[in-house]
């Protein structure tokens, strides 16, 4: 599940732009994840310029 860290979002909409399933709602100063629609692809976490989004999935260790 994608989570939004409290009070840190700048509401820039970058995550909304990359979301492939339109699962992020953003208003002037209000963001919410529509969990029923979200497919946990995590690309919103990748792209967030200020690291506001996170996942409750266990952290994956990168193997090179």
């Amino acid at each position: 599940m994608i989570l939004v860290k409290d009070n840190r979002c700048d509401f820039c909409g970058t995550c909304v732009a990359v979301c492939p399933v339109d699962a992020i709602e953003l208003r002037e100063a209000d963001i919410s994840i529509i969990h029923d629609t979200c497919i946990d692809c995590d690309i919103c976490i990748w792209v967030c310029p200020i690291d506001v989004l996170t996942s409750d999935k266990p952290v994956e260790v990168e193997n090179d």
Partner: protein
Amino acid sequence: MTDYDVIVVGGGPAGSMAAEAAAKGGAKTLLLEKDRDIGYPVRCGEGVGAKALKQFMNPDPGMIAATISKVRMRSPDNTCVDFGQEEAGYILHRRIFDVALANRASKAGAEIQTRAYVDGLLMEDEAVTGVKYQYMGQHRHLTSKIVIAADGVESRVGRMAGLRTSTKLKDMESGYQVTVGNIDVDQEMIDFYVGDNWAPGGYLWIFPKGDGMANIGLGILGIYSRYDSAHDRTHSFIKKYFPKATILASVCGGIPVGKTLKKMTSHGFMLTGDAAHMVNPVTGGGIITGMQGGQIAGEVAALAIQKGNVSEKGLEDYPIRWHRTEGKTHEAFYRISQTIDTITDEQLNKIAHRLVKTPSSELSLLKIFTTVAREKPKMLLDVTRAFAGV
């Protein structure tokens, strides 16, 4: 009878140009802006080419923070490639600039409403027939013959119309910028850092903003920003090079650097600006291309309404005219950006070492790209295409 002929969603440069052009063409036009103010918050580096801007306006001195006559590009080993051109560009005060453009639209007859958050479209089958929006807690709707969506990188309105507007991760730059005070930078020079060190898949910029201030920011491709965000990278840079700088403002945002959407119209509906992915894929600049796209969209919308045909076919001049003016160069720039992404830091250094031997009076962006093309020959044709007429 509809409430309006044209409703424009979004009050940035693309939206205001669209509203102005539509109103000038005789269409009863309304522009809706979701935020409280036109021009705020500013999500932009604010740099713009002087010649390109003058196609649209003679900029008022009040909207110009700095006039640029020098460009510096730094390779990863900090070799500086400098070149200049008299009054090459401006760093704008977007807050003032955007308001001036919206004001121009209103002088042409367009109505403007801020705090109007569009949360749906009125549709009849596949045709867009108006917007649903919220204003001060009230739900409202208005009918129109054409909706022009200029709602920026998010491009939600396009999705409501059934167009596929989302940006792929590989085509999205994750951006962050601070406006700083108390720094000693050349107020006539823009300074770029390329390479993987600060901004993999993008660049870091220092744009002067007058009186010891500057915009310092960077954009990195989304695929590189997972573990070291644009925010963290920008602050590391400032700590290293400008430890005494004070931070006056900070902003983040996404820059869509993919190809312009192939399908940017449907029945009664047009997309423009960042929402249509019109940003220059090499520079990340979207002000001029958005103004161009918005203006064409507004003109075509007004004509289509006069002719009484707002179907996709009736709006077909829009993609045709976009392709003729900006689209062709845009595609060449996109291919250049794909090649640039494959250049290693070592190659960048080599290119810079070669370029510093060239007298700076002979240096230009074209010269830089043709030198890059010596490393990546397949780029040469696109460089020629992109710079034809420049």
